[in-house]
Every structure is written in structure tokens, then in C-alpha cells.
């Protein structure tokens, strides 16, 4: 009896021992920076000298400074481009590719659509800023089809800069969504489709009644990943517009970077980072809850 108890407690400790390396990394590289960010957000600090206690002043500024609040609103607007467009378009493309799954065209289409995921975001940003420049390919095509009137420097005008950044994001994320959804579709039992067809269902009916409900979890993953990408966007905006013109495409990620490293207001930057983290969690959790598999 005694020996058995001893062995049990020993194995409990052994379990912890196995977790220790991973836990140590997690604490040092995730928990500690997070805790330090929260701590910094309560101080006024230039990053070098000794900081002074600032209480919740930095948080008040995040919500009252119109520039900072506008950045948060821009991130929310970007969700339309980063999330809604890739998921909806991705569904349509995946359904189309699945129908021609056996042909060589499907392989080519899959590769082409996934390519943006492989290209570094910085390269994508640079390429798109050429495409969207006043003499770029987009304007050349518009001129060619007689729409010369609407040509403009898409990334340089107040009304079009944010949507133009959104288009770049949609292009990048479309491949990821399509591939995820396609993988989900291949798991669906073909017998379901066969049965539906015997019952006289058309392609649309099949899609709405079989494909969509079966993809619940995959759609959940797509929406979560893309919403987080929209809220935490940085690279694409930094490369293509740097937040301009006149803050029209400023997003929180870029604002945090400017605040911390060019304005040296580490406190306000940290406060904005904490607010952004909370916002991301607040958006991601309900999506997870809504799309989780109830059957299991």
C-alpha cells in the first residue's frame, strides 16, 4: 500500500518534469512579455530613463485621442476585406474546384490560389504598391477598357487607401481559406451528395444543405484566423501606405510601433497593445463558441 502511494506521487512529479521545458519557454516568451506590457501600460516611460507611475491615464488616452481610436475603427473595417471576402470567395472557389477535382486544372488552380500564402507579406506589399500606383497595371487595365476617369493613385487617396490595403489582404488570405475549406470538403461523405441528387437536389441545394453545415469547423478556423489577421495587421499596411495618407489607413499594430519606437511613448503604446489584445480575444472567443462542433 505504502509503496503504491509512493509510486503514484513520483509519477505525478515526473509528468510535471516533462511539461517543464515547454512551460518554461511559454512563461519566458509569452506570459512574461504579456505581463510586462500590462505593467508598462501603467507607466509613462521613454524606454530608457526611469518610468513614472501613470495609472490608467494611458488607457484614457487610447479611448479619447481621436487618432488612436480611429486606428481601432480602421482595423474593424478591415475585417470586411480580410475576413468576409476571403471566406465567401473561398467557399465559392473551393466548391468549384471540388467539382473538377480530378482534372489537372484543379491542381493548377489550387497552386495559383495558394501562392500568395507562400510569398512573404513584404514582397506582396511591394508588388501591390506597384500594381496600384498611378501608372501601375490596375490603372493601365482600367484605361484600356475605357474607365480612364476613375484611375487614381489608389494607395495615395483618402477614400481609397484603406479599401486598397484591404484588397491586398483579401488576396493574401484567399488562398489560405480556399485550401482549408477544400480540405474540409474532401472529408464529406460522397454518399450524402449522391443521396441528395437522387432526391432531386440541384448544385445550390447541395451546397446549402450539405457542404455548408459540414464545413462549420473549417469556416470557424478561417474566420478566426482572418479576423485576427485584420485586427493585428501590420506588415501590409507598413509596406504599402505606412498608415497614410493622413492616417487614412492607420491600424493599431502600426500605431503601437510608431508610439513605442518613434514617439518613445512606451506607456501609451503598451496600453494600446493591451486594448488590441483584449479586442482580438473578444472577437475570437464568440466565433469559436458559435462554430464549435455541438455533436461531439
Amino acid at each position, binding site marked *: 500500500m505504502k509503496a503504491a502511494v509512493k509510486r503514484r506521487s513520483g509519477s505525478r512529479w515526473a509528468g510535471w518534469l516533462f511539461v517543464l521545458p515547454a512551460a*518554461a519557454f511559454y512563461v519566458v516568451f509569452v506570459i*512574461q512579455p504579456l505581463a*510586462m506590457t500590462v505593467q508598462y501600460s501603467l507607466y509613462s516611460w521613454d*524606454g530608457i*530613463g526611469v*518610468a513614472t507611475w501613470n495609472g490608467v491615464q494611458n488607457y484614457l488616452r487610447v479611448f479619447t485621442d481621436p487618432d488612436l481610436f480611429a486606428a481601432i475603427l480602421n482595423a474593424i473595417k478591415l475585417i470586411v476585406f480580410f475576413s468576409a471576402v476571403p471566406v465567401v470567395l473561398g467557399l465559392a472557389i473551393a466548391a468549384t474546384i471540388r467539382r473538377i477535382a480530378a482534372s489537372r486544372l484543379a491542381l493548377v488552380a489550387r497552386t495559383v490560389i495558394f501562392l500568395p500564402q507562400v510569398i512573404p507579406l513584404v514582397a506582396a506589399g511591394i508588388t501591390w504598391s506597384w500594381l496600384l500606383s498611378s501608372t501601375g497595371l490596375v490603372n493601365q487595365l482600367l484605361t484600356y477598357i475605357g474607365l480612364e476617369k476613375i484611375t487614381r493613385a489608389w494607395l495615395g487617396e483618402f477614400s481609397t487607401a484603406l479599401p486598397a490595403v484591404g484588397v491586398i489582404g483579401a488576396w493574401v488570405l484567399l488562398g489560405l481559406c480556399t485550401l482549408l475549406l477544400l480540405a474540409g470538403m474532401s472529408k464529406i461523405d460522397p454518399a450524402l451528395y449522391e443521396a441528395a441528387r437522387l432526391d432531386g437536389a440541384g448544385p445550390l441545394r447541395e451546397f446549402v444543405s450539405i457542404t455548408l453545415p459540414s464545413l462549420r469547423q473549417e469556416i470557424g478556423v478561417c474566420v478566426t484566423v482572418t479576423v485576427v489577421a485584420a485586427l493585428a495587421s501590420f506588415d501590409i499596411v507598413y509596406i504599402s501606405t505606412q498608415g497614410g495618407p493622413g492616417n487614412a489607413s492607420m491600424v493599431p499594430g502600426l500605431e503601437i510601433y510608431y508610439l513605442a519606437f518613434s514617439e518613445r511613448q512606451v506607456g501609451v503604446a503598451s496600453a494600446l497593445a493591451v486594448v488590441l489584445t483584449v479586442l482580438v480575444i473578444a472577437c475570437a472567443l464568440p466565433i469559436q463558441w458559435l462554430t464549435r462542433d455541438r455533436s461531439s
Partner: protein
Amino acid sequence: MVVILGGSLAAACAAPGSGNAQPTAAASSAPALASAPTCGTEPVTMKGYFETGFPIAKALTDEFTKQHPNVTFDIREDQFAVITQNAPRVLADDPPDLMRLPQVSELVKNNLLKNLDEYAKVFGWDKWPPSQLQQMRMAPGGAVRGEGSLYAMGLNFSMTGVFYNKKLAAQIGMTTPPATLADLDAAMAKAKEAGLAPIAQFNGGATGGLAFPLQDLMASYGPAAPINDWIFQKPGATIDTPSNLQATQHLEKWIKAGYFWKDVNAVDYATMMSRFMKGDGLFMFNGDWESGNLDKQMPGDVGFFLMPPAQAGGKQAAMSAPLTFGVGANAKNADCAATFLDWVATDTQARTIGVQVGGSHPMGPADAPMPPIAAGTVTESTLAAGAKIAEDNGSMDFIANATGAIYAKSWTPNLQKLVGGEQTPEGLLKSVQADYVSQVKGG
């Protein structure tokens, strides 16, 4: 795990920054010197942190090693934006002997730069024209710039004004540079009528290049001294003055008349240069760091003039700034670094490099020898412009240098809004002044 957690919790309890070794003002000043220091005869390796894309610093250090074989340089290079962000950390953790500096106020406030007063005394820098060193002087504590102790040194000093394409100028019958602002306006109007782009300028991303014509217009409408006071953070200084409002309204007139490219808000500096060199744009507001480049790319086709005054015969002013280098407060070879900086300004070969590689006027005494320059080049006219500015006491620092963040976070978005019709001249100056006040106060 407990230890790690405990450690991070302990760190979390103290105020951020209190664990760093805080350099004090006393440590950053050099001890009194009886005679000019040298680099000695023992092998010395100088640690340098320079700006990418500006070959002058490397050319000078190579020549210095040639003349002083015991001194070698270990150089790290970065883009200016990266240097700006890294400067405090690098100077605090791993102080270079020689470093290209961004705006110095915040660095001096944190006691990160060596006070160069003693060197200035023994080398006789304090006998040079005072305007050369003014921008690198800081009052105690780094509160006000433009006076007090010397914290940096220039490799040369730049001059700004208006470049023009001589071929396009001939097309519209402009044979001499405009003498007044009205002449300049008339030339722009003619160019527009002739279907040419009157102004080549950049205003995209985080770099609002319309700050160049704006500050030139400010100096055209009003005196230069109050603008410098504002840049140097003199208490009570404001950018929101009646003459600056006239200048901003004038800039808006140019925007509304379509004198800038339609996509100016999406044009960066490199795009502006390549378009101007391709012949797109009559005038370009820029500085003499491009003189050598333009002489090479468009030989004989480019002219330069200082921004004309609003009234004929009025005083002229220009943005003119030293290419600032400093010495870390805890640098190992400060004496040798100071020796190098003195050599740059006084050695004949070094001064030649300053002009030929750097394109700008060397630092140093007013009567120091100048290298020969080919007649009719842009370099010749930008150097001559320097003499006129000295005579009119019209040297200004850049309005973009008033604080570390005023350019990216205030001038640029406001100027982009002015182009887009989303900001008024009055609103622009009020908004910049409000940002300035909050940034000077710190946060």
C-alpha cells in the same frame, strides 16, 4: 519554473527602466584637457555606426586610416529610420565611438551623448562661424536646443533650395532664376499652361516632402529666427503665426492650382528623384546632398537657386543642417573620435572628400581651403548659395526636426490632408502646434 516566475514577478514590481544603469550628466562630460588629444600610436579599433546610402562617412574613415595606420574602423550601417529607433538603446547598451545621430534632444536628456565642450575648446571649434554648431548645442538637461554645450559634430553641412530643369525652363522662357516669390509663381503658372508639371515633390508614406516647400515659403514670408526658436523648443515658441499662415495658404494655392503631381500623396523620395531626372517636373524643393548625383545624371541640365523672398531684395533663408555625428557618453575611444571629427573639418584631403563625395560644404573655419569645383555645376551653385545664407543669417534647421516624432506623426499626415482637401491651412498649423506641445511635454 518557480524561479523563473519569481524572477519575472520581481522584475515586474520595480518601475520600468530603474534597473538600467543610468548615465549621469557628470559621466558624459569630458575631463578638462590641457592639449589637443590624438589617436596615439597604439593600434585602435574605432566602433562606428553609420547611415546606409551615404558613402561620405566610409570614404572619410578610409582616408583617415590611410593617414593614421594605427586606427581602423569597425563599422555597422543601418537605414536612417532604423538608427532613429535604435539610437537610445545602442548608445545605452553598446556605445559607439562615432555614430550618425538623429534629432539629439532626447539623447541628451538621457545623458547618452558625450559633451564635446572640452574638445571644442582645445581644437578651436568655438572659433568657427557659430551658426555651424548652433543646431548641435543643447542647454543643460536637453530642454532647449541651439544654445549651451556641444553634443554633436557635423561631417559637413547641407544647403537646401530649389533645383530646376534648365531644358524645361528654356521651354517656358525662364532664363534667370526667379528673384521674387511672384516670379516663381509666374514661372509655375507658365509651366502648367505649357502642359509641364511645375513641381516635382514627394509626399507619400510617412515622409511628407511638402514640408520642404512649406518651410521655404515660411522663410519667404517671415524671418527665420522664430522658426528656429520653435525647432529648438524655446519656451513659448509657436509655429502658428500670421506669416506662417500666409505661407501655408500659399502652399494650398499651389496645391489647388495643380502645380504638384496628382498622385503626390503616393510618391516617395526615390520616385520623385527618378521622375525629376527623367524630365518630369520643372522645380524640385530639395537639398545639396543630391548635387553630385544630379551633376552626374543630368550634366549641365540642372540649376539651383535659393527660395526667393516675397519682396524683391528681401533676406533669404534656407534649411541648412550639419550631417551630425556624435560620440557615445561611455565610448571607449572618445579622444580619437574627437580627433577624427577635427581632422574631417581641417584636413585638406578630408575637406575635398566632404565636397566631392558628400556634395555639401565642409565644416571648419571660414577661411579654410576649399577644393576646386568645376564651373557651371550644381555643386558650384549650391556651395555659392551657402555664402548668401551666411550673409543674411538665414540658416534654419528643418521644421521636421523639432521633436523626434513631429515629422512622421504630425507634419506628414497634416500635409497629406492638405493635399487631399481634408485640412485647412489654419487647421494644419493648429494641429501641428498641439502635437508639438504634447510631444515636448513628453508622455
